[in-house]
């Protein structure tokens, strides 16, 4: 019955699963990885990568269409966009990365099996593809089944009601779009369409957009949305959709399409996790600091294990679990996981937020005082550093600003290395860059900022 036997079986080839497979292969572990879709999971196929491609395209389009309104002296005739071509370009990138991930797994010696997986017991998984079915038994199993968009009962997906997956595949720019849920996914995609010329309305139930963050960080984003002509309704609830009109408790919103981005749920149903009776943490699979579930030999990584549902967290977990299976002495001891909203401007958070940890203080430095920000016409945003009063250790860094995502490595590096204000202040930061503002924020905390 057992067609394949291996030491390590990974269910799901998203960023967590495929990294786990590559690392396990490098370590000489006999590894099999199963996924019903293309390797790369949500992130590569219908998430991080395709959305970044569309964000880039929309940015470029917006810059050109608004060139004459900018002070750079550039004028262009009315540009046009063929969204079908844009989407084809995006798909080609996804395709390239699919092939890349497959190649990396193969090179490391991990076997990819296409099909949907279902647990038979703690050591055996049934994989079905069409009418074919075979079983795989393994000494260790990693659940990396990821997450899926949450559906609202009053707005079931289909037709004009889109999840992020469908929104990324639209080949025509809709005239109007209502975004239900003002979290980072909704805002990223809402901004894309706003820049492409769509009339966008964001319906957010909480009292401000990006409700996980404080208004200090979200205000520049809200202001930019306003500039882009996006209508933001806060404290509002969607009630239903009919004939191109979204009903809300604050009135009607005309919308060709409705994008529902009210969160993601872990994929635990349909793969037999319930039957294994693994201990859960709410809807998520509960894990310890070794990503071990309540059942011996079964690990879980990535979105299925809870917040933050981020690809790089899953990757780090996958790498760790592969090393654990190889007998290395590792554990989950990360201090901070950076989180990026690719909104306009971008928001990066890493570590503790202000007032989250007792005995900390917060310092900030605005991009208005940064030369580089002025030269890119984007002075909106700021840097923020949360530090411990007792020893000046930096415990959190946040920033909002254009292109700030590329600085996120400095945030997590500083926190992982245990940097204190004096360390960052005494490190030479290149001029003129936005990164100088991190140094200035630390100097400001020490009472001697130079440029403010």
């Amino acid at each position, binding site marked *: 019955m057992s067609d394949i036997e291996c030491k390590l079986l990974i269910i799901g080839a998203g960023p967590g699963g495929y990294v786990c497979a590559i690392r396990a292969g490098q370590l000489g572990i006999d590894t099999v990885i199963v996924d019903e879709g293309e390797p790369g999971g949500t992130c590569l196929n219908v998430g991080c990568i395709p959305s970044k491609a569309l964000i880039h395209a929309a940015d470029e389009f917006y810059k050109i269409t608004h060139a004459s309104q900018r002070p750079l002296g550039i004028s262009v005739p009315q540009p046009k966009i063929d969204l079908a071509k844009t989407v084809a370009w995006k798909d080609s990138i996804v395709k390239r990365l699919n092939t890349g991930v497959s190649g990396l797994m193969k090179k490391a010696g991990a076997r990819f099996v296409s099909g949907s997986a279902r647990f038979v017991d703690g050591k055996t998984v049934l994989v079905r593809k069409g009418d074919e079915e075979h079983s795989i038994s393994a000494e260790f199993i990693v659940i990396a089944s990821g997450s899926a968009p949450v559906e609202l009962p009053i707005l079931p997906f289909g037709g004009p009601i889109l999840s992020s997956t469908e929104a990324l595949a639209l080949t025509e720019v809709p005239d109007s779009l209502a975004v239900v849920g003002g979290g980072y996914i909704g805002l990223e995609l809402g901004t894309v369409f706003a820049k492409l010329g769509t009339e966008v309305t964001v319906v957010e139930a909480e009292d401000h957009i990006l409700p996980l963050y404080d208004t200090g960080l979200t205000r520049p984003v809200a202001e930019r949305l306003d500039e882009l002509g996006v209508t933001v309704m806060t404290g509002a609830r969607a009630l239903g959709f009919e004939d191109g009109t979204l009903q809300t408790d604050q009135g009607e919103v005309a919308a060709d399409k409705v994008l529902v981005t009210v969160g993601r749920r872990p994929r635990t149903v349909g793969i037999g996790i319930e039957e294994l009776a693994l201990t859960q943490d709410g809807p998520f699979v509960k894990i310890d600091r070794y990503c071990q579930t309540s059942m011996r030999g079964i690990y879980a990584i990535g979105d299925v294990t809870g917040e933050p549902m981020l690809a790089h967290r899953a990757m780090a977990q996958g790498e760790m679990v592969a090393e654990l299976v190889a007998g290395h002495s590792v554990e989950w001891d990360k201090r901070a996981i950076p989180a990026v909203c690719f909104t306009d401007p971008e928001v990066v958070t890493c570590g503790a937020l202000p007032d989250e940890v007792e005995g900390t203080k917060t310092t900030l430095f605005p991009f208005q005082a940064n030369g580089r920000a002025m030269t890119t016409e984007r002075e909106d945003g700021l840097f923020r550093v949360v530090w411990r009063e007792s020893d000046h250790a930096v415990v959190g860094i946040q920033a909002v600003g254009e292109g700030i995502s590329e600085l996120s490595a400095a945030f997590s590096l500083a926190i992982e290395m245990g940097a*204190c204000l004096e360390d960052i202040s005494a490190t030479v930061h290149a001029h003129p860059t936005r990164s100088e503002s991190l140094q200035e924020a630390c100097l400001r905390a020490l009472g001697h900022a130079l440029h403010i």
Partner: protein
Amino acid sequence: MGVFAIRLPDVGEGIAQAELTEWHVKPGDIVREDDVLADVMTDKATVEVPSSASGKVLELGGDVGDMIPIGAVLIRIEVEGEGNEKERPEAQKAAEPVEVTESAPETVDVSSTQPPPAQVQRTNGTKPLASPSVRARAREEGVDLRQVPGSGPAGRISHADLDAWIASGDIRQGAVTRGRNTGVEEVRVVGMRRKIAEKMAVSNRQIPHITIVEEVEMAALEDLRAALNAKYKGERPKLTLLPFLMRAIVEAVREQPELNGRFDDETGVIHRHGGVHIGIATQTPHGLNVPVVHHAEAGSLWDNAAEITRLSEAARDGSIKREDLSGGTITITSLGPLGAIATTPIINHPELAIVGINKMQVRPVWDGQQFQPRTMMNISCSFDHRVIDGWDAAVFVQKLKSLLENPAMLFVEG
């Protein structure tokens, strides 16, 4: 006892540091005041650093080639009475010579704010500051970083701090409250270890043991042994206690043949052997092994000594043959210097008896008027109580005692 730290004195010339060029002492050495500890080199000259205290060297403050700042701890010495240092803070300071050269953050002139305290009392639940590589190494070394003092800004733990902590041995001493180790390692009982386990289980399950412990005065035998070894030094193999004990067993079972043999408990037959085939319990890298000296009754002291040497070497290097491991009729077990006061030896099934020898030591013995220092050794012998009564067992042990205490009797042809 206290710890006395000697710092690198100002060797003149207004310099801030000097290169350590030679150590004249090493940890564990006893030094007296004014002994030369080390040579240090300045730009102009090599200077000897004398000791300002007497005691035992605990640790050196640097390696040859290191630049040692003036005033940094050069060496720590354990002295009589109080030292000039408290017990533990040394681990924090041990990293000083390395740290000082790169202590940039302290040199930043911060007048409006205070520099971060270098040593911070970490409150419970706060994770210690350390880079990911330091954390990984600590995990591998089994070090709980919460216990390690950090010398960096904000109490950050550097690789040097971790090294110093490991070197200070605090891991092993467990001086401070330590986290629980909930790890459980699975070790499969396989190969030779499984064989031993099965054999031991059979011996202990099948055989009701009776163990008798008796003390033996060894002076006469030790004198004889020393005399023989002196006489034949270089010509014949050196005699240990074992060949004498084998001789004693041969003599004892001559009178009690019921103790020398093998008991087939399934058929209920005891095979009393004419030959005395003595197993010698031997520790090997893979576990316990029992090679057999066949026909000990026929060999001289030196023959048997040579045979023991051959067998034990073969057992340890794994080249021993099957026939050398089988056919024993009685066994000797000895833990040598680890021999303890008494043991409860387990009979090598299907044999009938085992003779264990314990540690030889000088003990006070009451001679009727006063305590005399006597070289004493206990023997712990177990017998198969199904077929050997306590009385017979006791007779055998007394016979061994008497033969060992009067070794001449070993060589009287009976």
